[in-house]
């Protein structure tokens, strides 16, 4: 991953904006921002962002590559779509944030300890394995994602909820063994593999 990062730095020397346009989902929209700030103001977790979307867009234009990609800001997106609904320039901000997060992850720059980053990865792996999300595993792995001791604490904290879910048959302990899933996981994984390959290729094309 690290070398991929340096490769990118080489390629786009100077223009982080171009790098984002080529490699980030909906990245070509960044330049259309007019700095009104309605997105930052509309974000439910706004207060926890180091940099709101509008500021991130300005930082991209200003070439602040590291600051943006290493920031935890994008990971605060709850996908509430307020920003998209209100943006006077119709920027698909939610997607750009997801895109930036994903790109940061691919470059290996995403903050390792960022909980949503971890959760997101776990979620994806979880669904890739069986094609469907296995909530218990997801939950457990989530509680333990910060290491064993933390995990015990968290699961203890969550125990009551777990119990409630269990009693109301909204959580099934046997999932750990059995669990949900698609039948044709092979096919699904083939599709995802191909998609990943195509995406990588597309990005390559843009750079070439």
């Amino acid at each position, binding site marked *: 991953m690290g070398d991929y990062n340096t490769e990118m730095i080489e390629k786009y020397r100077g223009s982080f904006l171009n790098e984002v346009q080529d490699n980030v989902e909906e990245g070509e929209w960044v*330049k259309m921002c007019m700095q009104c700030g309605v997105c930052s103001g509309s974000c439910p977790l706004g207060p926890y962002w180091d940099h709101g979307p509008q*500021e991130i867009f*300005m*930082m991209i234009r200003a070439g602040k590559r590291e600051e943006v990609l290493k920031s935890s800001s994008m990971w605060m997106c709850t996908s509430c779509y307020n920003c998209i609904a209100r943006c006077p320039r119709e920027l698909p901000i939610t997607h750009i944030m997801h895109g930036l997060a994903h790109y940061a992850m691919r470059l290996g720059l995403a903050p390792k300890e960022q909980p949503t980053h971890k959760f997101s990865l776990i979620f994806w792996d979880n669904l890739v394995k069986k094609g469907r999300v296995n909530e218990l595993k997801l939950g457990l792995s989530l509680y333990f994602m910060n290491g064993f001791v933390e995990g015990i604490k968290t699961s203890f904290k969550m125990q009551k909820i777990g119990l409630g879910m269990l009693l109301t048959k909204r959580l099934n302990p046997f999932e750990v063994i059995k669990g949900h899933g698609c039948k044709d996981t092979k096919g699904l994984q083939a599709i995802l593999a191909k998609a990943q390959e195509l995406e990588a290729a597309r990005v390559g094309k843009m750079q070439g």
Partner: protein
Amino acid sequence: MSETKIGAYICKGCGLGERLDCDQLATIAEREGKANVVKQHDFLCNADGVKMIQDDIDNDGVNHVVICACSRRAKTEAFNFENVAISRANLREGVIWVRPDAEDMRETTQEMAADYVRMGCFEAKFMTLPASEQEKGHNNRLLVVGGGDAGMTAALEAAKAGYPVTLVEKTGQLGGSLGKMWKDVPSHAPYADPVEPDVKELAAQIEAHDKITVHLNATITKTSGSPGQFSADITTESGGTTTENFGAIVQASGAKSYDMSKLPELGAGKSPDVVDQMGLEQLAMEANGGAIKRPSDGKEISNIVFVQCAGQRSTKEGHLPYCSGHCCLTSIKQAMYFKDQNPSIETNLIYTDLRTPGAGGEDFYRSGQEKGIIFTKGIVSEVSSSGGGLQVKYKDLILDEDVNQAADLVVLATGMVPNSGVDIEAAPTEAEGDGGNGASQEVTVESILNLTYRQGKDLPHLKYGFNDSHFICFPYETRRSGIYTCGPVRRPMDSQQAREDATGAALKAIQAIENAKLGRAAHPRSGDLSYPSFRKEGCTQCKRCTVECPFGAIDEDEERYPVFNESRCRRCGTCMGACPVRVISFENYSVDTVGQQLKNVDMPDEFDEKPRILVLACENDAYPALDMAAMQGNHYSQWARVIPVRCLGSVNTIWVTDALNAGYDGVVLMGCQKGDDYQCHFVKGSEIAHERMSKIDDTLETLNLEKERVETYEVAITDIERAPRLINDMAAAIEKMGMSPFKF
């Protein structure tokens, strides 16, 4: 005109019949008003009433009509009789609507009405029907000064309407500033890309047009005359001069770029790679569609910074206080030169407020963003050259940090300075004085028109050297009738606005020509056929009229007598107000038409305890305000006698002294706001009147009257509650001071 025959017509409608004793009014009109015909009618403004009057005019030789009914502002169309002098006695808005309907008030209300009937009759008696007999100018050729985008447009649009045009351009070719530009900002959808400037097209059309004569390398060395009969000397570089006659003039002398050498902190003059917007246009012209090269070393340019508001919107010494309006769009356009050529070129546009208004502006801004222009809200503090390149130091206001950016080329959006000629109102000392950057160019300004006018060579400047109109509703108001400015000389503007503006100015010039043919006044007294005449015998050559005329309409002959240029005159009467010996008058508005009204008010003697207050009110603002107060049922003192005047500037102090001598207990003058944001639609009238009245105190002293007996106010048309209050205040003041001793 045959001998005066006055017809007085008293309306009994709208409650007049009930509230007033109309038979008594009729008697007064007949006995005191000396009206030859007096009739009453239940409903004077209806077809039957109007017909009654028209019949008397047609069959009975009535040539002076006194309408004793509602305000002159009401039913104007109904009482609009041709070829007769008309005066209106305002019994409705002026009397019954401003007085309570109570028994104990009947007497004073009736007195009010009676006075207005008297006043109406005497006004009519001393009016003559304006018959514009002055020799009129019939010339319908336009002179357009300046061959830029605006001038060419004005010439073409006028010619398309059938009017011959002479176009005079100082340089060797048509096109002006826009002619020096590689591309223009689009003025029609899609507002996406720079477009071919239309100047070549316009120039071609002009050369092809048989109604347009062009003089290149020529300037105007002398302009005299008035609408319909201007005369101008056109002098070419070679020195040859031809004199031509014109009906009207459009001045499109444009603007020049701000002198960027005043901005050393932004690198101007320090490096050839720092240019202003015109400088960049020149580079683009030279590149002629190819890559724009760096001036210093001809190197490929990969990084440009545009600095908006360079030396503009700033109160700093030598900077321009205003925004030049076009610069944001122009910089976006110029950044596109590079982006369209090679998208990988970095263009950073640093602005504080991006100003791209309207439908086109916002689209063009978006298009600039789509092309990858970077827009940074920031303030540039310094541009310096370092090792073959430039360093731009600025504060990024969004990221709130100081930035140093390297650039190959820096473009300063420095804005424009109008070519408006000599500032005739600037105190001469100022011109040289304050040895400053700002004034330096004023020292060497050449006149554009070289008018032979008493008041100076060029049009008065409004602000910052621009020749704009001061009126929101009347952008083409000019203080030199028949001469209209358009384009950037009037107000900072882009080419699209300049073309629109030029078309409007051409219309006004054409209108001036048509008015001159008929001897008609231009706005605001549109269509007024009267014009000032003066008795040379009485004139003392004091020159007040020639100095005070807000429109520079009056010149002086060799013997220092005033020379009235009727078609330059706007009929405000300021000259009449100015004249200490009262030799200036209009047929339908004179020292007498007003003087006789106030003299013929019935003046009760001191012991009747019935004071009289003379109110002289501007017909456009104060008088309507009183009318509307009446409509709203706001009452005012029964002692008031209101006379509308064309402008407070037309008020001759003699009226005030006459009134006081005649026993009036108080005089209230109501004019428009004066000063920088003046609302006087004759520009200076109100100001001059206030000036004159400030001197009235001496008169009062000699009469030894309290100076509270004369008040001068600025009254707006919206002062519907205040205007009546001012009258009542005077009534109250009189109550305190007691009656005037000057009653006989």
